């Protein structure tokens, strides 16, 4: 039985709950306000009762946000952004995981000389603001003919996710027994064979963690999509910001909030469904190193 400090009843106990419940209220409040606002007609919003439940519920703002809201020049809603984000996210999840796994495997088991120096630089890279590398990257991609294209933005995501993905898999493989690898070597397994037939099938848990982190990270990215994706591939976050911050005329707050929820729907769904896996990603990416 656990022995944490506790009193079954008493002021301290009440205090604990009071604090936790008020904190929970503070954390839920924005989500509540978003939801409520998104189904109110504009006349109700203009009354200024942000907390009030809607008197007459309308789903028109959701439809407008999805298909008719103006994102700068065009008025086609953010559905195009959704498709773009999807097109960016799928390769930007698969490729970084594959490269991260391969890097982690080579670093943990094959340990080529000098690789740790590279790994150290890569880890430092995780902390550096993307602006430091932005202009040269733009030039490099332009030279390769990839600037403002789907492959270009995927490549950029691959660059910036490599530190975390490599770290994740390196730590995971380091926790596996070395004997496993040695036995496979004695059986004559080569580099790729051991990777694909032994290591990758054992990596399911960490692949799930990595996928959750990547989907969330790529979907929530703003600055990379803004600079590298190009006008035809702007992700949902960029279009959302355009809907809200660059529209002129009357601000349709209900449409704005519906668009915000729609944009957050993918990462929020992943979060609520994946539960502890999401937390594991934080722990695996952060606590070990």
């Amino acid at each position, binding site marked *: 039985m656990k022995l944490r400090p506790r009193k079954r009843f008493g002021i301290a106990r009440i205090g604990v709950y009071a604090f936790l419940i008020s*904190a929970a209220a503070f954390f839920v409040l924005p989500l509540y306000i978003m939801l409520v606002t998104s189904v109110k007609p504009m006349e109700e919003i203009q009354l200024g009762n942000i907390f009030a439940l809607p008197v007459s519920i309308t789903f028109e703002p959701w439809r407008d946000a999805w298909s008719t809201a103006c994102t700068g020049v065009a008025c086609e809603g953010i559905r195009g952004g959704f498709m773009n984000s999807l097109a960016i996210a799928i390769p930007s999840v698969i490729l970084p995981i594959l*490269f991260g796994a391969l890097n982690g495997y080579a670093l943990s088991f094959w340990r080529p000389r000098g690789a740790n120096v590279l790994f*150290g*630089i890569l880890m430092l890279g995780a902390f550096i*603001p993307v602006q*430091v590398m932005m202009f040269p990257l733009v030039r490099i991609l332009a030279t390769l003919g990839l600037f403002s294209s789907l492959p270009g933005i995927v490549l950029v995501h691959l660059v910036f996710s490599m530190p975390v993905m490599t770290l994740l898999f390196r730590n995971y493989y380091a926790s596996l027994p070395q004997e496993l690898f040695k036995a496979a070597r004695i059986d004559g397994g080569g580099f790729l064979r051991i990777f694909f037939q032994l290591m990758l099938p054992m990596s399911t848990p960490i692949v799930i963690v990595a996928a959750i982190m990547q989907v969330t990270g790529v979907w*929530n990215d703003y600055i990379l999509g803004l600079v590298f994706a190009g006008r035809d591939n702007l992700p949902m976050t960029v279009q959302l910001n355009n809907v809200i911050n660059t529209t002129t005329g009357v601000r349709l707050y209900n449409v704005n909030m519906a668009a915000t929820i729609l944009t957050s729907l993918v990462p929020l769904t992943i979060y609520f469904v994946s539960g502890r896996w*999401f937390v594991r990603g934080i722990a695996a990416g952060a*606590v070990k190193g």
Partner: protein
Amino acid sequence: MSRFARQATSWVALGPMAVFVLVGYLGTMLWTLRISFSSSRTFPADDFVGLAQYIKLFNNDRWLLSLNNLALYGVLFIAATLLIGFLLAVLIDQKVRGEGVLRTIFLYPYAMSFVATGLVWQWMLNPEIGLQQAVRNAGFVDFSFDWITDQDRVMYTLVIATVWQASGLVMAIMLAGLRGIDEEIWKSARIDGIPAWRVYLSIVLPMLSPSLATAFVLLSTAVIKLFDAVVAMTQGGPGVASEVPTKFIMDHLFGRANIALASAASVVMLCTVLALVAPYFYARSRADRRKESA
């Protein structure tokens, strides 16, 4: 397989990583460093003007304001997030009912983008139609909460929004640390009659210093990278009151076509990051080496 062949195959596998590190990270950084010593405007120039761009940078009021803003924001954001996150973790660790629900509630903002976070809070803090108006409608006619349109207070609104977003992260890290603490400590503290808050402050908190360091490093990184939330919430305004260095760099890279100045600013940011994380890395690698030799 010979040792040489073994080395060779693994280097082939690490080839992409080597290219990414050498070109994507090191190469681009050196390139940025080079540009910062030139007089480049829209396109990179080959000349060498020494530290002229850096001198210009530190005579630029907008840059100095950005740095000030970031320092103020960073101190408040890190302090508040660590405090709230730690408090939530400790309280959740008191064997409360509904722990799972509470944890889910505290962490969900972390799954949201900074853009969405900024937009929601921009809407809630809008004085005409948001919280201020709602409280006034409820009868408190003199209530005032218009920080987002107040040049002197707008940075605080960014702190509020991002603390909301990131506190759950600290809670998750701290809770993991708390759950790893030996139960014996609580037993003996109880026998000695030490009050719980003292145990937390004098025994548990020092034991959690690795978790604390991790959280601190993650939050500092977030501070230095602060950009999306500003763009979504205040666009640097009102006026230039909530400008931050990353936005200064972006504006000079793309809007104002002054890539040399932007590069100088980038190098300053880079040095700041290195100064911040170098001690952390050093401590980590020493700890690793000790572990390996033990």
